[in-house]
Protein backbone atom coordinates (compact mmCIF):
# COMPACT_ATOMS: atom_id res chain seq x y z
CA UNK A 1 0.00 0.00 0.00
CA UNK A 2 2.42 2.65 -1.24
CA UNK A 3 0.24 5.21 -2.95
CA UNK A 4 0.94 8.91 -3.36
CA UNK A 5 -1.99 11.33 -3.07
CA UNK A 6 -2.27 11.69 -6.86
CA UNK A 7 -2.08 7.92 -7.34
CA UNK A 8 -4.85 7.52 -4.78
CA UNK A 9 -6.99 10.11 -6.57
CA UNK A 10 -6.34 8.56 -9.98
CA UNK A 11 -7.00 5.04 -8.70
CA UNK A 12 -10.30 6.06 -7.10
CA UNK A 13 -11.27 7.89 -10.33
CA UNK A 14 -10.56 4.69 -12.31
CA UNK A 15 -12.77 2.75 -9.91
CA UNK A 16 -15.58 5.31 -10.03
CA UNK A 17 -15.54 5.79 -13.81
CA UNK A 18 -15.27 2.12 -14.74
CA UNK A 19 -15.54 1.12 -17.62
CA UNK A 20 -14.97 4.55 -19.20
CA UNK A 21 -11.92 5.72 -17.28
CA UNK A 22 -9.39 7.29 -19.63
CA UNK A 23 -7.05 10.30 -19.39
CA UNK A 24 -9.55 13.13 -19.91
CA UNK A 25 -12.37 11.62 -17.83
CA UNK A 26 -9.94 10.88 -14.97
CA UNK A 27 -8.62 14.45 -15.08
CA UNK A 28 -12.15 15.87 -15.02
CA UNK A 29 -13.21 13.59 -12.18
CA UNK A 30 -10.22 14.61 -10.04
CA UNK A 31 -10.94 18.27 -10.83
CA UNK A 32 -14.58 17.92 -9.75
CA UNK A 33 -13.86 15.98 -6.58
CA UNK A 34 -10.48 17.31 -5.44
CA UNK A 35 -10.86 20.89 -6.69
CA UNK A 36 -7.74 21.10 -8.88
CA UNK A 37 -6.94 19.98 -12.40
CA UNK A 38 -3.92 17.66 -12.58
CA UNK A 39 -1.95 17.94 -15.82
CA UNK A 40 -2.32 15.22 -18.42
CA UNK A 41 1.34 14.41 -17.95
CA UNK A 42 1.04 13.85 -14.20
CA UNK A 43 -2.10 11.71 -14.68
CA UNK A 44 -0.34 9.49 -17.22
CA UNK A 45 2.81 9.32 -15.10
CA UNK A 46 0.64 8.21 -12.14
CA UNK A 47 -1.19 5.69 -14.33
CA UNK A 48 2.12 4.28 -15.53
CA UNK A 49 3.29 3.82 -11.94
CA UNK A 50 -0.02 2.20 -10.99
CA UNK A 51 0.21 -0.14 -13.96
CA UNK A 52 3.77 -1.08 -13.01
CA UNK A 53 2.57 -1.91 -9.50
CA UNK A 54 -0.19 -4.04 -11.01
CA UNK A 55 -2.99 -1.86 -9.61
CA UNK A 56 -4.55 -0.98 -12.98
CA UNK A 57 -4.62 -2.58 -16.38
CA UNK A 58 -5.19 -0.80 -19.69
CA UNK A 59 -7.01 -1.62 -22.89
CA UNK A 60 -7.04 0.31 -26.16
CA UNK A 61 -10.22 1.93 -27.47
CA UNK A 62 -11.24 2.95 -30.97
CA UNK A 63 -9.55 5.86 -32.77
CA UNK A 64 -11.78 8.93 -33.25
CA UNK A 65 -11.40 11.94 -35.57
CA UNK A 66 -11.57 14.54 -32.77
CA UNK A 67 -8.54 12.85 -31.24
CA UNK A 68 -6.62 13.12 -34.51
CA UNK A 69 -7.26 9.42 -35.20
CA UNK A 70 -5.59 8.39 -31.95
CA UNK A 71 -6.95 5.72 -29.66
CA UNK A 72 -8.12 6.16 -26.11
CA UNK A 73 -6.48 4.07 -23.43
CA UNK A 74 -9.02 2.83 -20.90
CA UNK A 75 -7.94 1.86 -17.41
CA UNK A 76 -9.54 -0.62 -15.02
CA UNK A 77 -8.62 -1.31 -11.41
CA UNK A 78 -7.30 -4.81 -10.72
CA UNK A 79 -7.99 -6.88 -7.57
CA UNK A 80 -4.69 -5.83 -5.89
CA UNK A 81 -5.51 -2.24 -6.90
CA UNK A 82 -8.89 -2.45 -5.19
CA UNK A 83 -7.27 -3.79 -2.08
CA UNK A 84 -4.66 -1.02 -2.06
CA UNK A 85 -7.36 1.60 -2.61
CA UNK A 86 -9.52 0.24 0.20
CA UNK A 87 -6.55 0.04 2.58
CA UNK A 88 -5.41 3.59 1.76
CA UNK A 89 -8.88 5.07 2.24
CA UNK A 90 -9.32 3.12 5.47
CA UNK A 91 -5.97 4.45 6.73
CA UNK A 92 -7.06 8.03 5.96
CA UNK A 93 -10.40 7.47 7.69
CA UNK A 94 -8.62 5.99 10.69
CA UNK A 95 -6.11 8.85 10.85
CA UNK A 96 -8.81 11.49 10.63
CA UNK A 97 -10.92 9.93 13.38
CA UNK A 98 -10.87 11.99 16.58
CA UNK A 99 -9.11 14.99 15.05
CA UNK A 100 -10.21 18.24 16.64
CA UNK A 101 -10.32 21.26 14.35
CA UNK A 102 -9.93 24.88 15.38
CA UNK A 103 -13.15 26.85 15.12
CA UNK A 104 -13.06 29.49 12.36
CA UNK A 105 -11.73 32.76 13.76
CA UNK A 106 -10.88 31.23 17.10
Amino acid at each position, binding site marked *: MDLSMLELQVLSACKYLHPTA*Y*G*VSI*QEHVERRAGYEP*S*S*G*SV*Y*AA*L*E*RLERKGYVK*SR*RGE*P*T*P*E*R*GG*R*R*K*LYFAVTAPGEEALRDSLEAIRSLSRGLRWNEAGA
Partner: protein
Amino acid sequence: MIATGKVKRRTFLFPKVLFEEGLTGDLRQRMADVLREEARTGILNEREFQKIIALASANLGHAVGVEERGADAAELDGYVLDLPENIEITPFFPSPPALAEYIAILTANSEQGEALVGDLDEQFQEDCKRFGPARAARRYRGRVLRSIWPLLRSSIGRMVKWGAILAAVKRLFL
Protein backbone atom coordinates in the same frame (compact mmCIF):
# COMPACT_ATOMS: atom_id res chain seq x y z
CA MET B 1 -27.62 43.77 -63.52
CA ILE B 2 -27.12 40.08 -64.08
CA ALA B 3 -23.65 38.69 -63.53
CA THR B 4 -22.18 37.08 -66.61
CA GLY B 5 -19.03 35.16 -67.33
CA LYS B 6 -17.35 32.71 -65.05
CA VAL B 7 -19.03 32.34 -61.71
CA LYS B 8 -16.54 32.72 -58.92
CA ARG B 9 -17.28 30.31 -56.12
CA ARG B 10 -16.92 31.59 -52.62
CA THR B 11 -16.06 29.51 -49.59
CA PHE B 12 -17.57 30.35 -46.26
CA LEU B 13 -16.13 29.25 -43.01
CA PHE B 14 -18.65 28.47 -40.33
CA PRO B 15 -17.34 28.18 -36.80
CA LYS B 16 -18.09 24.69 -35.57
CA VAL B 17 -20.25 25.89 -32.69
CA LEU B 18 -22.39 28.01 -35.04
CA PHE B 19 -22.83 25.12 -37.41
CA GLU B 20 -23.66 22.51 -34.80
CA GLU B 21 -25.78 24.52 -32.37
CA GLY B 22 -26.84 27.64 -34.28
CA LEU B 23 -27.76 26.48 -37.78
CA THR B 24 -30.48 24.14 -36.67
CA GLY B 25 -33.84 23.12 -38.16
CA ASP B 26 -34.66 24.79 -41.47
CA LEU B 27 -31.87 27.38 -41.08
CA ARG B 28 -29.32 24.94 -42.42
CA GLN B 29 -31.44 24.30 -45.50
CA ARG B 30 -32.05 28.04 -46.01
CA MET B 31 -28.33 28.69 -45.80
CA ALA B 32 -27.66 25.89 -48.28
CA ASP B 33 -30.19 27.46 -50.68
CA VAL B 34 -28.56 30.89 -50.41
CA LEU B 35 -25.11 29.49 -51.06
CA ARG B 36 -26.30 27.29 -53.90
CA GLU B 37 -27.88 30.31 -55.52
CA GLU B 38 -24.68 32.29 -55.03
CA ALA B 39 -22.66 29.50 -56.62
CA ARG B 40 -25.04 29.41 -59.60
CA THR B 41 -25.37 33.15 -60.22
CA GLY B 42 -22.33 34.63 -58.55
CA ILE B 43 -24.58 36.91 -56.49
CA LEU B 44 -24.94 36.43 -52.79
CA ASN B 45 -28.25 37.41 -51.23
CA GLU B 46 -26.50 39.30 -48.45
CA ARG B 47 -29.73 40.23 -46.70
CA GLU B 48 -30.96 36.65 -46.39
CA PHE B 49 -27.43 35.48 -45.55
CA GLN B 50 -27.07 37.96 -42.67
CA LYS B 51 -30.60 37.22 -41.48
CA ILE B 52 -29.84 33.50 -41.20
CA ILE B 53 -26.58 34.22 -39.35
CA ALA B 54 -28.49 36.48 -36.95
CA LEU B 55 -31.08 33.76 -36.32
CA ALA B 56 -28.36 31.17 -35.82
CA SER B 57 -26.55 33.50 -33.40
CA ALA B 58 -29.82 33.97 -31.52
CA ASN B 59 -30.07 30.18 -31.21
CA LEU B 60 -26.61 30.18 -29.70
CA GLY B 61 -27.27 33.12 -27.40
CA HIS B 62 -24.31 35.15 -28.68
CA ALA B 63 -23.10 36.62 -31.96
CA VAL B 64 -20.79 34.50 -34.08
CA GLY B 65 -19.23 35.69 -37.31
CA VAL B 66 -18.85 33.77 -40.53
CA GLU B 67 -15.69 34.37 -42.46
CA GLU B 68 -15.22 34.19 -46.16
CA ARG B 69 -12.09 32.36 -47.18
CA GLY B 70 -10.18 31.46 -50.27
CA ALA B 71 -8.78 28.16 -51.35
CA ASP B 72 -6.94 27.61 -48.08
CA ALA B 73 -10.21 27.23 -46.21
CA ALA B 74 -9.63 23.55 -45.58
CA GLU B 75 -6.70 24.45 -43.37
CA LEU B 76 -8.78 26.64 -41.13
CA ASP B 77 -10.95 26.03 -38.13
CA GLY B 78 -14.59 25.04 -38.05
CA TYR B 79 -16.76 23.63 -40.78
CA VAL B 80 -16.15 24.49 -44.37
CA LEU B 81 -19.31 24.93 -46.34
CA ASP B 82 -18.49 24.99 -50.01
CA LEU B 83 -21.42 23.71 -51.93
CA PRO B 84 -22.55 24.50 -55.41
CA GLU B 85 -24.54 21.30 -56.00
CA ASN B 86 -25.54 19.65 -52.81
CA ILE B 87 -25.26 20.26 -49.13
CA GLU B 88 -22.01 18.46 -48.61
CA ILE B 89 -20.63 19.54 -45.30
CA THR B 90 -17.18 18.47 -44.31
CA PRO B 91 -16.51 18.42 -40.60
CA PHE B 92 -13.08 19.84 -40.14
CA PHE B 93 -11.20 19.43 -36.92
CA PRO B 94 -8.67 22.18 -36.34
CA SER B 95 -5.11 21.13 -35.66
CA PRO B 96 -3.56 21.99 -32.32
CA PRO B 97 -0.14 23.67 -32.14
CA ALA B 98 2.64 21.26 -33.04
CA LEU B 99 3.86 20.66 -29.49
CA ALA B 100 2.09 17.37 -28.95
CA GLU B 101 4.73 15.32 -30.73
CA TYR B 102 7.32 16.37 -28.15
CA ILE B 103 5.07 15.09 -25.41
CA ALA B 104 4.72 11.78 -27.25
CA ILE B 105 8.50 11.56 -27.52
CA LEU B 106 8.89 12.22 -23.80
CA THR B 107 6.66 9.27 -22.96
CA ALA B 108 8.75 6.22 -23.74
CA ASN B 109 5.70 3.99 -23.51
CA SER B 110 4.35 4.56 -27.02
CA GLU B 111 0.83 3.35 -26.26
CA GLN B 112 0.47 5.88 -23.45
CA GLY B 113 2.11 8.53 -25.62
CA GLU B 114 -0.52 8.07 -28.32
CA ALA B 115 -3.34 8.21 -25.76
CA LEU B 116 -1.90 11.30 -24.08
CA VAL B 117 -1.54 13.21 -27.33
CA GLY B 118 -5.07 12.10 -28.28
CA ASP B 119 -6.36 13.44 -24.95
CA LEU B 120 -4.68 16.79 -25.57
CA ASP B 121 -6.24 16.88 -29.06
CA GLU B 122 -9.66 16.03 -27.67
CA GLN B 123 -9.46 18.79 -25.06
CA PHE B 124 -8.27 21.20 -27.76
CA GLN B 125 -11.31 20.42 -29.95
CA GLU B 126 -13.62 20.90 -26.97
CA ASP B 127 -11.96 24.22 -26.14
CA CYS B 128 -12.28 25.36 -29.78
CA LYS B 129 -16.03 24.83 -29.47
CA ARG B 130 -16.26 26.66 -26.16
CA PHE B 131 -13.69 29.44 -26.47
CA GLY B 132 -12.60 29.69 -30.12
CA PRO B 133 -9.32 28.57 -31.70
CA ALA B 134 -7.04 31.33 -30.32
CA ARG B 135 -7.88 30.71 -26.66
CA ALA B 136 -7.97 26.97 -27.27
CA ALA B 137 -4.40 27.14 -28.60
CA ARG B 138 -3.27 29.09 -25.50
CA ARG B 139 -4.90 26.54 -23.20
CA TYR B 140 -3.36 23.72 -25.21
CA ARG B 141 0.14 25.18 -24.84
CA GLY B 142 -0.45 25.61 -21.12
CA ARG B 143 -1.52 21.96 -20.78
CA VAL B 144 1.52 20.76 -22.71
CA LEU B 145 3.91 22.86 -20.63
CA ARG B 146 2.36 21.63 -17.38
CA SER B 147 2.72 18.04 -18.63
CA ILE B 148 6.39 18.21 -19.57
CA TRP B 149 7.93 18.07 -16.10
CA PRO B 150 5.99 15.04 -14.76
CA LEU B 151 6.74 13.12 -17.96
CA LEU B 152 10.37 14.15 -17.96
CA ARG B 153 10.70 13.11 -14.30
CA SER B 154 9.13 9.77 -15.11
CA SER B 155 11.48 9.26 -18.10
CA ILE B 156 14.51 10.19 -15.99
CA GLY B 157 13.33 7.75 -13.31
CA ARG B 158 13.16 4.98 -15.92
CA MET B 159 16.62 5.82 -17.25
CA VAL B 160 18.14 5.91 -13.77
CA LYS B 161 16.53 2.56 -12.95
CA TRP B 162 17.89 0.94 -16.12
CA GLY B 163 21.25 2.59 -15.53
CA ALA B 164 21.38 1.10 -12.03
CA ILE B 165 20.42 -2.35 -13.36
CA LEU B 166 23.10 -2.17 -16.07
CA ALA B 167 25.70 -1.06 -13.54
CA ALA B 168 24.77 -3.96 -11.24
CA VAL B 169 25.00 -6.44 -14.13
CA LYS B 170 28.41 -5.02 -15.09
CA ARG B 171 29.65 -5.31 -11.50
CA LEU B 172 28.45 -8.88 -11.17
CA PHE B 173 29.37 -10.38 -14.51
CA LEU B 174 31.94 -8.20 -16.28
